[in-house]
């Protein structure tokens, strides 16, 4: 367990991680006790916290944020639980197909869906609203998307796919013989669901809901698009507003203090998440025999299940995508009709190279490739130290790698801006500050996924290398890396695509020199909706094609790891 045995590598990995993660966060914490602009002298003060906690506006925003969190998880609960049950426990047809659709949906940017829903449901010209008004002879639009309910619903739709994957793994971890033993001893389906399945699933469900509550109050893009037009603020949009106000100077100190409060609140949420998760893991029994989970035969109810899947996919995926396609065809948005279709043009697509010029493409490519490479390299090193060495501070290293998860993107971007401005780093305003931010942001995801892969590799495979004369680093290079290779490539693809869809940090750290496709769509939206929609359509298609072919490639070429 001493440092000599493991060499210097673990300590080096720890120091790099701490510097990357804690540097910006501590700078933001420090700056929350100051006023003025970073890089200029100013006195220490509690003014930022007193101002925030002493104003009614802050409490209003806080209540909105809570409302958004609760509204989101209600939506998630409504969709994700039945979907997970259908896809994990029943004989629903083509389950793998639906799961792939859901995994692609995770990669489709939330802001595109929000834009599409504005076109459908804004109170003046929203296509559904107009149609309903004409149809029912209403004077006013029946549905307004610019409300907290609207934001929560769209946000909930977006968070449903990852929640489905989380809940499905909980369903799969449950030993099926726990239900079978109830059946053979005389209990019926209803009683089993009430007395066995539900209590056993409860911790995992609560954990998932806590996790997505935290995620919901940390997100920015959907509340910004749907909330700012009607001045409905949540904490993340409030922070954005303070750093990029319509009038006056940015107030980094005030933004930092609110950001620190939000981070503290999410950390608390994640703490309860981990506590609940531990309970859930106690219930997950490893069974002796891999008896295949018996699927519940849906019979005639298959159609009801299919209807439910469409009931989810229609508003979450199909309708927004079709809306974007429709909007991309017209210089000025038309209500859907055959007559309108005759005026459609593909202008926006022919001009797509003007909208996403060489600089934007170059920035985007750099962001994707460098971020994914850095995240996966760091993750492999960190996970290897955490899981395979006797390094004394490996728990601290694991926590440090996960910490960015607890800090909302908005806050982390803010911290990064202050960090760069304070220390006058030349990366400010370039694509590299975005790469830096994305790398740290996805480090939590990367280490979680590599951890779970390394754990599965039997320790003796490594030990066999060591006793036959290989050093630790040689073992890592020659044994572990080849074994985890497919998973690492898979993770690389995933992070590259997540960086492609990331817009929050890109907006917070926006400058004319670091425009990427996501921010380009965002800024084009108001000026040229058709062009923005066309770019969005192309983006979605590229994401889907890249993800499908990557999966196919990995499945074909690497058999020993899934």
């Amino acid at each position, binding site marked *: 367990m001493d440092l000599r045995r493991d060499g210097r590598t673990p300590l080096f990995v720890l120091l790099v991680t701490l510097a990357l993660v804690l540097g910006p966060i501590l700078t933001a914490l420090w700056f929350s006790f100051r006023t003025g602009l970073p890089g200029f002298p100013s006195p220490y003060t509690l003014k930022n916290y007193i101002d925030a906690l002493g104003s009614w506006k802050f409490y209003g925003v806080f209540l909105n944020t809570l409302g958004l969190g609760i509204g989101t998880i209600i939506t998630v609960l409504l969709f994700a639980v039945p979907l997970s049950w259908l896809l994990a426990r029943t004989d629903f047809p083509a389950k793998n197909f639906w799961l792939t659709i859901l995994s692609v949906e995770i990669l489709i940017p939330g802001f595109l869906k929000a834009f599409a829903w504005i076109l459908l449901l804004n109170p003046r010209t929203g296509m559904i609203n107009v149609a309903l008004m004409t149809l029912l002879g209403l004077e006013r639009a029946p549905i307004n998307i610019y409300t907290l309910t609207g934001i929560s619903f769209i946000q909930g739709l977006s968070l449903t796919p990852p929640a489905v994957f989380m809940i499905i793994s909980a369903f799969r971890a449950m030993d099926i*013989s*726990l239900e*079978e*033993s109830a059946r053979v*001893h005389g209990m*019926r389906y209803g009683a089993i669901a009430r*007395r066995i399945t539900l209590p056993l699933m409860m911790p995992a469900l609560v954990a998932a809901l806590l996790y997505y509550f935290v995620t919901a109050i940390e997100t920015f893009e959907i509340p910004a698009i749907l909330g700012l037009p009607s001045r409905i603020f949540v904490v993340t949009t409030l922070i954005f507003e303070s750093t990029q106000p319509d009038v006056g100077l940015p107030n980094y100190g005030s933004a930092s203090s609110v950001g620190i409060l939000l981070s503290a609140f999410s950390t608390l949420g994640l703490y309860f998440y981990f506590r609940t998760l531990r309970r859930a893991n106690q219930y997950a*029994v490893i069974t*002796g*025999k891999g008896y295949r989970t018996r699927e519940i035969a849906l019979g005639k109810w298959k159609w009801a299940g299919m209807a439910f899947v469409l009931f989810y996919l229609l508003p979450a995926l199909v309708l927004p995508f079709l809306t974007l396609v429709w909007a991309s065809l017209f210089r000025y948005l038309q209500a859907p009709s055959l007559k309108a279709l005759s005026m459609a043009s593909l202008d926006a697509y022919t001009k797509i190279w003007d909208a996403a010029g060489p600089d934007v493409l170059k920035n985007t490519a750099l962001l994707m490739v460098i971020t994914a490479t850095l995240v996966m390299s760091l993750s492999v090193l960190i996970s290897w130290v955490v899981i395979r060495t006797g390094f004394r501070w490996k728990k601290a290293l694991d926590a440090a790698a996960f910490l960015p998860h607890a800090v909302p993107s908005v806050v982390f971007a803010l911290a990064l801006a202050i960090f760069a401005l304070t220390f006058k780093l030349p990366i400010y305003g370039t694509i590299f500050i975005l790469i830096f931010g994305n790398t740290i942001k996805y480090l939590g995801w990367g280490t979680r996924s590599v951890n779970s892969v390394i754990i599965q590799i039997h320790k003796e495979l490594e030990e066999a290398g060591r006793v036959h004369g290989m050093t630790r680093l040689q073992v890592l290079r020659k044994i572990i890396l080849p074994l985890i290779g497919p998973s690492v490539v898979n993770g690389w693809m995933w992070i590259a695509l997540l960086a492609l869809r990331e817009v929050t940090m890109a907006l917070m750290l926006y400058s004319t020199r670091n425009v990427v496709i996501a921010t380009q769509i965002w800024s084009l939206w108001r000026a040229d909706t058709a062009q923005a929609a066309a770019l969005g359509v192309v983006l979605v298609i590229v994401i889907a094609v890249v993800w499908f072919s990557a999966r196919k490639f990995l499945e074909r070429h690497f058999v020993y790891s899934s």
Partner: protein
Amino acid sequence: MIRITGLVKEYQTGQGEIQALRGISLDIKEGEFCVLLGPSGCGKTTTLRCVAGLEQPDAGEIVIEGTEVNSPQRKIYVSPEERGIGMIFQSYAIWPHLDVFQNVALPLEYRKEKLSRLQIRDRVGEALDLVRLKGLEGRRATDLSGGQQQRVALARAFACKPKVLLMDEPLSNLDAKLREEMRSEIKQMTSALGSTVLYVTHDQSEALVVGDVVAVMQGGVILQRGSPQDLYNRPESLEVAEFLGEMNFIQGRKVGGELRGRHLVETRLGNFISDSAREVPVGEAVVLGIRPEDIHLCGEKPQANNAVAASIVHRQFLGNATMVELNSSGIKISARAALRSASTDLSSGAVFVVLDPSCLHLFRSAELKE
């Protein structure tokens, strides 16, 4: 008590259709302890799950205590909760969110005959008493050891007062010492209660110890069914002989003797006499089989029939016996010699092997594996 007739079950897999059961028939009398024994994948667990109702056969019938519970032909399927059975799962299936008392009591709350709270408490107390878990009622299931979980599973099944008790490899997750302890306890408890038991295992010594009747399965069929003594002493086929204990095989041809009773068999090692009761016509290719413990070793050429010279290749001291590996004209023979003879006669390399005619098994199949 349980009557299984012509059970067939097919599975769809990636490689096509697999016949897990190809016509299983089995009769289990009231109070009988019946063991299904076989290697993994032989269909024993599938048979058990069909009896439980957790799996539906494609053809065949199952009758439990005179009630037809499965008959695909006549569209009869009684669901598991209606069958009045008790079952022990390989993973024990102890509900982790409940304590010991609740684990046993929960199914009783949903029995068809409505039990009062007091009756339930008595039944649970009785069952926990039987499995010697009294005093642990409030213990959380997740805090129990493997052996204790096993006992809770037993108590839960007993408390339901089932018509038949099904056990699916109940001992495979325990360590060796506890396994031996539990298998004799299970045997004692079930015979004290007079339960009818269907028990699945892949462990031959476990099957011989607990079973009144053992059915050896392979490839979805029952090869032989009988008492443990029957199966060990009179295996009907090479597969059964190989699966239960060890046996030496010598290929040969019957050259003389009656149809049954006394056979003269010609082999590469010379002629042998077997007293097997099997009917074999003269001229047929046969396989002789003998268990290591039925082989006698002598230092000098004996007067008896069935003696052949051999050289010792290897000796393995086991404590209460010595395993001796011999070679006779290129044929490997293992013998199990009692301790005394091992120390005296076996020091020299050359010995004589005597195969007792009454212990020399005769099989008609000439397809010796290896």
